């Protein structure tokens, strides 16, 4: 079986799964087209994240477990770009916050300058600590009152700076840029460390990004969440009140509620597919280009590549930034799909390690593999719960209805997800370490 046939067949398989989800309610399928499209949309977003991770791991062998952080930054970009500015926030303290942040950055730059310029010794340490301490006090002195000012504005509804009020689609590239900026900072400090250390470093940074988003209410409203973000698609209610739309739906024999929900979801699916295809095409071109071959050469033998005059650290930084940017775009798309930013829901198991399962199962180093892995694993992630319930119902069929064991097992079926994902990952790593679609 040639590679192309295998790839097509596997994609066809995922397609059939999603079609079955929409059309039949046998076994664990729900028979709802809404649910099928929901799975497809998040699957497409996951596929884009997997594409980004594949760029870092498959092309360059960088072990990044901070995906959650970049995804969250993409979500933050949606708030900063598209939500309406809070009236008065900038005069109440927005300017002060920006000034304080600039002060903080300048302090760090000054400290680094001291470290670079002065002779090593006790004096250098003392001056550096003094610069940092003074900088920190000044920063807090400007920052705290400004934040209090911003957060005092209508705290039940706003209390944050708000955004620029630009069209929400602009937030997607902006999310990529924000994630790329963060990745550049992280890469500058953490790349060049050994693979395990890079893993721990990225894991930590992702947690910090989430902590910042949860606590800095002036930025993202923290755990109060930002809801009602602008959408690129019309609201379902408006469609249902639109006589023309209702008439059109009637032509297809659909009732207006179902038609409007499907219409909106299909719109998202189309948009996401376009973005995915563009990114996939770019990744594919990059893989085939001399640049892609160089990346794989570096991955396979850093020393040899260095001997050929390749600057390994810079190339690593480059691809780390690119891959993270893709994750940022995906994060922005996800927040747009939900039309709300909920910093409390970011969980490394779901946003970092699940993406890794997708990449490994799909086949690291193969872009089509990542997309396939993204769609397939996302489908499983959603469907493992009903599958597990089905399984446990079958197993416990013999037990009497009132028994405590049966009740506990049925209650716990929801937790089958993590167990199954771990099992899939271990099985793939053991029996097919190159994934469903191996690298060519």
């Amino acid at each position, binding site marked *: 079986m040639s590679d192309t046939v295998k790839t097509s067949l596997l994609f066809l398989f995922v397609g059939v799964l999603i079609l079955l989800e929409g059309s039949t309610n046998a076994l664990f399928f729900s028979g709802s087209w809404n649910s099928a499209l929901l799975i497809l949309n998040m699957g497409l977003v996951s596929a884009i994240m997997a594409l980004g991770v594949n760029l870092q791991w498959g092309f360059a062998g960088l072990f990044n477990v901070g995906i959650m952080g970049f995804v969250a930054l993409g979500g933050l970009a949606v708030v900063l770009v598209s939500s309406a500015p809070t009236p008065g926030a900038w005069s109440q303290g927005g300017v002060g916050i920006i000034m304080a942040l600039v002060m903080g950055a300048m302090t760090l730059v000054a400290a680094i300058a001291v470290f670079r310029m002065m002779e090593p010794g006790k004096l250098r340490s003392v001056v550096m600590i003094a610069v940092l301490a003074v900088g920190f006090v000044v920063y807090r002195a400007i920052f705290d009152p400004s934040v209090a000012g911003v957060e005092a504005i209508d705290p039940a509804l706003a209390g944050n700076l708000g955004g620029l009020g630009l069209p929400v689609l602009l937030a997607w590239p902006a999310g990529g840029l924000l994630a790329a900026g963060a990745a550049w900072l992280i890469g500058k400090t953490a790349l060049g460390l050994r693979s395990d250390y890079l*893993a721990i470093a990225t894991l930590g*940074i992702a947690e910090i990004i989430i902590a910042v988003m949860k606590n800095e209410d002036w930025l993202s409203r923290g755990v109060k969440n930002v809801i009602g973000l602008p959408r690129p698609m019309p609201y379902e209610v408006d469609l249902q009140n639109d006589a023309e739309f209702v008439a059109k739906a009637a032509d297809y024999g659909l009732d207006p509620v179902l038609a409007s929900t499907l219409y909106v979801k299909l719109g998202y699916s189309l948009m996401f597919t376009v973005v995915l295809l563009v990114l996939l095409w770019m990744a594919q071109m990059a893989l085939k280009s001399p640049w892609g071959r160089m990346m794989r050469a570096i991955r396979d033998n850093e020393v040899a590549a260095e001997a050929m005059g390749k600057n390994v650290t810079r190339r690593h930084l480059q691809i780390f930034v690119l891959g993270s940017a893709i994750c940022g775009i995906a994060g922005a798309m996800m927040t747009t799909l939900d039309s709300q930013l909920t910093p409390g829901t970011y969980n490394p*198991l779901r946003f970092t*390690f699940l993406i890794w399962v997708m990449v490994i199962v799909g086949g690291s180093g193969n872009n089509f593999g990542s997309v396939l892995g993204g769609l397939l694993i996302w489908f499983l992630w959603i469907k493992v719960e009903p599958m597990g319930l089905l399984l446990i119902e079958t197993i416990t069929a013999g037990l009497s209805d009132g028994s405590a064991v049966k009740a506990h097992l049925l209650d716990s079926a929801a937790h089958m997800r993590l*167990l199954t994902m771990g099992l899939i990952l271990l099985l793939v790593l053991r029996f097919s370490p190159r994934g469903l679609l191996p690298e060519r």
Partner: protein
Amino acid sequence: MDFLNALVAFVNFVGVPAIAYGSQLAIGALGVTLVYSVLRFSNFAHGDTMAFGTMITILVTWWLQSLGVSFGPLPTALLALPAGIAATMALMLFTDRTVYKFYRAQKAKPVVFVMVSLGVMFMMNGLVRFVIGPGDQRFADGERFLISARDFKAMTGLREGLAIKTTQGITVITAVIVVALLFWFLNKTRTGKSMRAYSDNEDLALLSGINPERVVMYTWLIVASLATIAGVLYGLDKSFKPFTYFQLLLPIFAAAIVGGLGSPIGAIAGGFIIAFSEVTITYAWKKVLTYVLPESLKPDGLVQLLSTDYKFAVSFTILVIVLLFKPTGLFKGKAV
């Protein structure tokens, strides 16, 4: 007198919690460091191993409590601890047999091991949630305080109280015993010496007739005990929640790396460094400062450098600084 009050306030809010937390981190980091030095990979499943051991201990504790067994003023969980350790040992040996052994035989790269440990992490996490659920569990019983704040105030006549929880006392005592036993084992016994030899130079160790599978087996047994003890102590002191244990991975790794991966002394030092920095930087210093500073300099705010939610940021910043300036950690660990 003001100075004494300040000192007591400091010990009460910073010193005691940090020592207890530091001991828990140190025992956790010892486990990570042992896996790293003998099996040569960063074990991402360590947090969930701790959760598993604690879960078994909690279940046995509940069973003992239902039988009416208690340990007097001490928590019943201490009686259940051996059962937790035994179960975790069995699980570790089972995981090693079914999962890790295959890759060891293949001499897979460390990063493959890390990936595999991610899979193990998922499965253990799922298993724990499956059995005990994702919620919060408190299982500490017995006497709550060694010294309560009120008794301390009555005893000394100071305005500030010093409270030491029983669990904090137990944590420190257990930590001392565990560390002493571990060092005795590593330095004095034959198996311990062969473990160190294997970790220093695998080829030479094999040449001198050390059985690698035996070394690996003992490592997992020790790691299982350390993980369970660390998990139970943390759970007694705070509370048990699967997700919190997963998140403990970060400070534990930070402790192990700051001290130098592969160095047991480093792991202990790292644990206390991380714990003390987390607590001091996120503590509101107002109370202490009002005693020490003269009236005119009294602070208005809480004098809290960072809010408590940023404790990850603290351990992480220390980690980065150490990695940048001293990549092998404070106590020269090894870099594979």
